[in-house]
């Protein structure tokens, strides 16, 4: 049983997606329990896989018993076991927290929503675990197509058009990736990542391999919303229905950032990525621009969810910059930031989703006096905000710390400056909201919500997961040293 964990991890949610859709015709009430069961099994398996990887080291699983490079292999190492755990955790917690909201919003389309939800998670898990370049493309498109549909289910009139813009950009990205894989296949005749890695070194001088790398990189960067290819992102995430936004926003961009790191580390080698092509400095500068422009754009927004989407653009800048600084410290910081950012984004999006359920609209001035009305939700939002700013002991501080250390090691002080400036802008951002919510006079300023005295919190099913995520932020922060030394660094041995 346990040797089949990598396959079960992907297949259990896949089968439950189909079961849910069938179930929605027969017995509508059992959809949510089925979805939660499917994701819980997947969550437990990902814990099992992480423990197994830590004990035994990296291993590969051959689907159908076909040995690579002929068959498709699932590769497990310390880093992707960690990312898998992050994906299943975020998906499960978000489903539990927003279950009631989903039942209310999609009363007649429940089956479709849950099936898409699970298929999206299947796509992401597959992307992270697969060891095959073409398989990655297919799973990437599974995750993207379900993502487009989830976003288009939003109530807002602008949801379909934002989703269609995302379709255009996403398809261009996926096509570039496919083209890059094609060039690699022409040169090496293989699609298995480990095999390609072995075959590539004699071909590093070839311009076809350079073209392949650039095509793959640009494709993945479009998908992750890296500045200046981020224009689809704010609209798509703002107009998505809130249960889908708090699933897609933390996961999609982060998993794509992981794909970029995987391409750099386990398909190409850092010697090629950092020395043969002299792009790393340029990309780090672009990342600095992404960080600062994302933060400034966030500052100019009135709508809180839109503001958070620009913060995602800025966070992607952190990860890409860290990955391209070219040393082990910065790379560990980037990988740690993938985990932290998934958790922080989930935390703020859950809180914002809960607030928007009560208020309807989400402009900053609508929050006036909200602390007295929804103390726990707002506390969760503040915790997420503090972590995004990077205040110890929340986890956001530690990944920024590793990134800054890595930047100093690489003598790149521009990146250090960008990190610090964006943290300062984040302080302004979140304290503006906290001030309005804490000090604002609800009687005069409240436009969006009727003021009534007393606490009007959302239900416990939302509050408990939010509390879990908030404590998770602190726990991950305290143990981030352990995560880096015990899990991420061993995963990077032989790379730097």
């Amino acid at each position, binding site marked *: 049983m346990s040797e089949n964990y990598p396959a079960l991890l992907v297949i259990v949610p896949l089968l439950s997606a189909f079961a849910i859709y069938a179930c929605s015709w027969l017995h509508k009430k059992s959809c949510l329990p089925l979805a939660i069961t499917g994701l819980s099994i997947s969550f437990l398996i990902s814990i099992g896989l992480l423990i197994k990887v830590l004990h035994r080291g990296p291993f590969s699983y051959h689907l159908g018993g076909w040995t690579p490079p002929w068959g498709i292999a699932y590769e497990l190492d310390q880093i992707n076991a960690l990312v898998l755990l992050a994906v299943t955790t975020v998906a499960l917690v978000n489903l539990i927290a927003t279950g009631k909201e989903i039942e209310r919003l999609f009363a007649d389309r429940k089956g479709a929503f849950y099936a898409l939800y699970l298929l999206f998670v299947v796509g992401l898990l597959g992307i992270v675990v697969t060891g095959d370049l*073409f398989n990655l*493309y*297919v799973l990437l*498109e599974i995750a*993207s*197509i379900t993502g*487009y*549909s989830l976003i*288009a289910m939003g109530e807002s*009139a*602008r949801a*379909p*058009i934002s*989703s*269609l813009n995302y*379709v*255009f950009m996403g*398809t*261009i990205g*996926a*096509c570039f990736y*496919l*083209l890059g894989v*094609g060039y690699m*296949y*022409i040169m090496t005749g293989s699609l298995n990542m480990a095999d390609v890695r072995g075959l590539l070194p004699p071909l590093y001088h070839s311009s076809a391999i350079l073209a392949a790398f650039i095509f793959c990189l640009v494709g993945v960067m479009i998908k992750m919303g890296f500045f200046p290819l981020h224009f689809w992102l704010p609209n798509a995430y703002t107009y998505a229905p809130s249960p889908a936004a708090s699933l897609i926003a933390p996961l999609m961009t982060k998993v794509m950032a992981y794909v970029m790191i995987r391409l750099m580390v386990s398909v190409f080698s850092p010697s090629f990525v950092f020395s043969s092509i002299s792009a790393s400095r340029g990309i780090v500068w672009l990342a600095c621009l992404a960080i600062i422009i994302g933060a400034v754009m966030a500052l100019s927004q009135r709508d809180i969810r839109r503001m958070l989407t620009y913060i995602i653009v800025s966070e992607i800048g952190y990860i890409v910059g860290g990955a391209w600084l070219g040393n082990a410290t910065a790379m560990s910081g980037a990988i740690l930031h993938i985990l932290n950012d998934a958790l922080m984004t989930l935390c703020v999006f859950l809180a914002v989703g809960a607030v928007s359920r009560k208020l309807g609209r989400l402009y900053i001035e609508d929050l006036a006096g909200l602390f007295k009305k929804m103390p726990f939700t707002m506390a969760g939002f503040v915790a997420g905000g503090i972590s995004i700013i990077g205040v110890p002991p929340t986890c956001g501080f530690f990944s920024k710390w590793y990134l800054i250390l890595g930047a100093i090691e690489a003598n790149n002080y521009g990146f250090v400056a960008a990190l610090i400036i964006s943290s300062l802008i984040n302080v302004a951002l979140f304290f503006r909201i906290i001030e309005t919510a804490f000090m604002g006079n609800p009687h005069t300023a409240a436009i969006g919500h009727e003021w009534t005295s007393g606490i009007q919190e959302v239900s416990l099913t939302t509050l408990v997961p939010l509390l879990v995520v908030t404590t998770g932020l602190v726990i991950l922060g305290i143990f981030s040293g352990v995560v880096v030394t015990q899990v991420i660094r061993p995963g990077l041995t032989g790379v730097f």
Partner: protein
Amino acid sequence: MEFFLTHLVAKYNFWLYIILMMIGLYAMIAKNNLIKKLVGMNIFQTAIILFYVSIGSKKGATIPIIEHSGKTVGHALDPAHYVNPLPHVLMLTAIVVSVSTFGVALALAVKIYQRYKTLEEDEILTRIRES
């Protein structure tokens, strides 16, 4: 002349797929009607499918099955004489992907038409600004 022969004629499949891709990209950027943009997207995807198919083709070669190799059994066993079927098989999957993307995009276009009663992008944008 030599440049013409080595870069244009010998690698004409690359030029064709690049031209097709650019036609698709142009339609996606410059056209105002959403359906025309979608067709451009489909041309873009098809260009890459044709690229994969072209790299898997070989003149005078057969399929890698012993039965089909004609009289001499050794014919289909020698890699020089058979076509690598893998790129074509991969493209079956890619075609499925592109069809489903196109399907989702068309469904979105229908939804947009129901909301705004038009598929011209500039009219949709003015309506968004008015509301």
